[in-house]
């Protein structure tokens, strides 16, 4: 299967051609948004962190924002720093330049304040925008795609209809040579033995099991009942009773392909070893999708029973529900109605083919509903509190 996408200097292919503004810390986030607002087509990410974080927590924020810049859906980047912040703009820019993409940076304290930074930023970005506008899509294999698998606002229809449909489409993408990422470690609890059995490499299997144990241990160490957060009130109202039930439904997204590896949050999916991956992300959708996009996902498919509007600043998110009532209730947000499996006796293969067809169209440029509504949700997973 061939698609048309934007070829990047590092050999990867993007299905969008975004001009991205990255604030290195919360202190630069508003200035970054003001710069993006001046340049049509530019998008900034609302980084809430990047300063007074320590160790692995600080490193994770840097890895996530760098991953966003490296994502092949991004054609060019402006990095905006305050100057005294924990993540330094020139370091982020240097990492991003390794991709060969156009990358510039501005520092608020060096420019002399908000207005001069905005002016300098817009001056640097306008030519980037013009250059990106001349870039044309070229033919490449569908196998160049890394797809993030997400579910949120789950109900029992997710495990019956929408997640198995995603599993079908994921199998098909992997057969084309592409990669899929199963995420949300919390929502593996109770189903980990089934996924672990599908790992090819025992070391990667052990890493996966340790990731799941670490999340469960965190709740136990806090002396808290995981049930206070998972399943959520909406999950329960929909009919999901326990985290185990939710997890067992969630894992249908992963289809039947063997797992190649277990990735850390925001770790880049190896381009040289395509296939099915697990990524250690939280069950909170926005942080989870952010991690997978930082890991290189050019496309996300999102299953929901209760309905949710979530998108991403740089990656198209396809929304699929297994609940026919929800599809009727939230037409603005839902791209595919897998609830027809329940209401009309539609076959899984039929809806799976429809989803794969939509994935191809979206790769070729068709907007998802989340894109057409300008949904740009973004959130970085935190390992500990801010100091």
């Amino acid at each position: 299967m061939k698609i048309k996408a934007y070829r990047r200097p590092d050999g990867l292919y993007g299905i969008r051609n975004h001009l991205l503004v990255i604030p290195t810390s919360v202190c630069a986030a508003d200035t970054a948004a003001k710069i993006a607002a001046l340049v049509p087509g530019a998008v900034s990410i609302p980084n809430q962190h990047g300063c007074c974080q320590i160790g692995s927590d600080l490193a994770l924020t840097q890895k996530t924002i760098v991953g966003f810049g490296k994502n092949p859906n991004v054609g060019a980047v402006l990095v905006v720093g305050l100057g005294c912040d924990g993540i330094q703009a020139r370091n982020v820019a240097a990492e991003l330049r390794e991709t060969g993409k156009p990358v510039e940076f501005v520092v608020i304290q060096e420019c002399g304040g908000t207005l001069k930074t905005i002016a300098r930023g817009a001056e640097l970005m306008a030519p980037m925008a013009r250059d990106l506008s001349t870039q044309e899509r070229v033919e490449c294999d569908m196998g160049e795609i890394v797809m993030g698998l997400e579910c949120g606002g789950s109900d029992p229809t997710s495990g019956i209809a929408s997640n198995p449909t995603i599993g079908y489409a994921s199998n098909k993408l992997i057969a084309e040579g592409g990669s899929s990422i199963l995420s949300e470690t919390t929502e593996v609890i109770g189903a980990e033995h089934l996924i672990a059995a599908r790992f090819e490499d025992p070391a990667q299997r052990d890493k996966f099991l340790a990731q799941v144990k670490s999340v469960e241990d965190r709740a136990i160490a806090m002396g808290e009942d995981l049930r206070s957060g998972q399943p959520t009130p909406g999950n329960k109202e929909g009919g999901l009773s326990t985290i185990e039930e939710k997890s067992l439904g969630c894992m249908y997204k992963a289809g039947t392909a063997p797992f190649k590896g277990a990735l850390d949050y925001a770790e880049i999916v190896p381009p040289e070893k395509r296939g099915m991956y697990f990524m250690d992300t939280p069950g909170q959708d926005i942080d989870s999708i952010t991690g997978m996009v930082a890991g290189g996902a050019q496309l996300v498919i999102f299953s929901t029973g209760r309905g949710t509007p979530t998108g991403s600043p740089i990656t198209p998110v396809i929304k699929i529900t297994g609940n026919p009532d929800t599809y009727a209730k939230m037409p603005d947000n839902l791209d595919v109605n897998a609830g027809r499996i329940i209401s009309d006796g539609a076959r899984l293969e039929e809806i799976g083919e429809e989803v794969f067809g939509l994935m191809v169209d979206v790769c070729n440029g068709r907007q998802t509903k989340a894109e057409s509504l300008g949904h740009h949700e973004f959130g970085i997973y935190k390992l500990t509190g801010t100091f």
Partner: protein
Amino acid sequence: MNAALHINEKDNVVTCLRALKKGEVIEVDGRSYTVNMDIPRFHKVATAAIAKGGMCYKYGEVIGDATQDIAPGDHVHVHNIESTRGRGDKRR
């Protein structure tokens, strides 16, 4: 449309594909069950007795244990089963 979906033969609950009324008789895999209470769409109904402390199965896997005796036809949800995982509250 069938009234309920039985996913795995090991399961002692089925998923209601429509809202069920108290007293309604539903057929699952050739056996009849009387529904003991109103049950919302996509929630679970027991197809076997589950004693307090016994395991509840869906997808052929454990989804929790019973906090009270559950009879066939009962609504199975957070009021009568609970998770066995991530229970830091039990260590306090």
